[in-house]
């Protein structure tokens, strides 16, 4: 999967490319409008991460170019502005998603994956981890071929873990992913444990392995190592 990252903040550009490279994406970088425009016109990308405020232009204009030239790439706008207008404008112009700074890497990964699936770049709609298979289209979870019923939140949570496998995810990041930051509960994320426990019980009941490891009571990691 090829990703173009357009971001004028070099430090952020490096972090993003490091992370996405680790997640097996091929990353190309553009730190300004001019470079980004050239790359968009010449090469093909599956996903473009687009910062709106660039030193020599606006990311919104790049988005216009992408859509005008029928370039088949998923676009995620990354903006410091949580302003509603920008968001609506971006989505109206054909952006697939809109993320407000500061964002979390697992969340970014989850959104990229979801765009790839929507654009069918992946070629399949299954997310697999050993005996656990999730069919995104049908919203079905199977363990060794056997279907398990999960509630909406449990399903979202498990999928989030599967997409960010082998990665430590804190409770805050999970809460943000599941409740969209709508929920301001400071340190009170205990109820996440309730959901997680349900997931573990259901997987165990079908004689699956509990791959979700708790790390020092503050984070979780889906791993078989």
């Amino acid at each position: 999967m090829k990703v173009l990252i357009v971001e004028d903040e070099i430090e952020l550009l490096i972090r993003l490319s490091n992370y996405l490279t680790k997640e097996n994406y091929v990353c190309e970088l553009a730190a300004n409008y001019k470079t980004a425009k050239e790359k968009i016109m010449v090469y093909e990308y599956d996903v473009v991460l687009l910062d709106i405020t660039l030193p020599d232009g606006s990311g919104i204009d790049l988005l216009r170019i992408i859509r005008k030239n029928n370039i088949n790439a998923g676009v995620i706008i990354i903006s410091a502005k949580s302003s509603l207008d920008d968001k609506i404008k971006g989505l109206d112009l054909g952006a697939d998603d809109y993320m407000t700074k500061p964002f979390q890497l697992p969340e970014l990964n989850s959104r990229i994956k979801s765009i790839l699936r929507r654009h069918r770049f992946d070629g399949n709609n299954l997310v697999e981890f050993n005996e656990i298979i999730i069919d995104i289209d049908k919203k079905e979870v199977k363990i060794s071929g056997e279907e398990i019923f999960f509630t909406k939140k449990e399903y979202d949570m498990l999928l989030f873990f599967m997409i960010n496998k082998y990665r430590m995810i804190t409770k805050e990041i999970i809460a943000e992913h599941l409740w969209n930051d709508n929920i301001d509960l400071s340190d009170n994320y205990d109820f996440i444990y309730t959901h997680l426990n349900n997931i573990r019980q259901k997987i165990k009941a079908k004689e699956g392995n509990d791959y979700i490891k708790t790390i020092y009571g503050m984070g979780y990691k889906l791993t078989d190592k």
Partner: protein
Amino acid sequence: MKFLTKINRQYFLTYSILLVFVSVIGYFLLRLIIIYEVKEDILEKEYAIIQEIRNNNNLPNIYPIIKTKKINENEMRSASYKKIFFYNEIEQEQEAYLEYTNTLKINNSFYCIKLRHSLLESNDLIMAISLSLLLLLVLALIVSFVITKQMNKTVWNVFEVNLKKIENFSFNKSFELELTETDIDEFNTLNKTLLELTKKLKSDYKSLKEFTENASHEIQTPLTIISLTLDEVLQQDLSESVFKQVISTQKAIKRLSNLNERLLLLTKIENMQYPVDEQININDVIDEQVKEFTALIKHKNIDVSFIISGTFKVKINYILAEILFNNLISNAIKHNIDNGKLNIIMTDEKISICNTGKNNSLTNSSIFHRFTKENSQSYGLGLSIVKQICDTHKLDIKYIKDKLHCFTIIRIK
């Protein structure tokens, strides 16, 4: 007190005092002049009498006003005036006279001349003149008072009109201040100064707004870098203590970023940057928000009950309505006790969100202020955002602690 009332009152007071002074001074001045005239008259008569004595040796006597007689040399006195009273038989009353006594030597004989002049008519004259003078002055005062009042009204009219305009002017509104021109230089100068001042203030206000927004945005990028770097650190094999330190740093960053976002939100609400949607059914918004909190409600085992007797509808931006009730409901859950209650009362005219909680009442006046917080974990901005949204949408919010902590939103008519 209004400017014109004040001016008129001052004017009236000053003129009244002035009137009293002028009347008193006028009275005495008039008296002095008339007495002087009387004396002159007496001296003229004396001269005529002296001539009569000298030429005709005739001593004229008219009671009671002229009396002449021969005297001895040793009875000579210098001339003097005195006031005396006579009984006037015709008018049957005591009458005041000015009596002039003089002794003279005419043709080697000594004479005493007494001349009397009635003061009654002079006094009457003084009174008559004084009264008519007073009357005229009072009349002049009233007339000038009315005229000034009327004139002030026309002259200040434009000023009042402009004052109304300035009163209604707000920096939030997009239109510029427009003041009516007058033919009075001072007012025009004032208008010009005001226009320049508001223009300057408006641009300052705008740049301040932009500054707040830009500063908030600029802060988000470094926060993202810090947060992402820390996330990378967390992926390594860390000891528990380092792990906890990184997590706590990450939480602090999250708080900083949330705080920043909330301040930005407050600024935007204040600046009315959210367009008003159509009538929003608040009952639905609340339903939706309560669903968002299902996990937490279950976790705390809170008993939620809806008491619905109507539909509360408000013209508001949908996102703001969500933020408004998200804040209130999240507070009602956050500050609730385990196995507590959450009652939501919905009518056509108001919405009440009541919850069990700690027994002590919140201090009513300051809870809606910024950075008033119960503990260090909260931002102290939630309720001020709520208040700000209410203020900008003709809603009133009240907090009452009875058995439950109740927040009630009422439409302002």
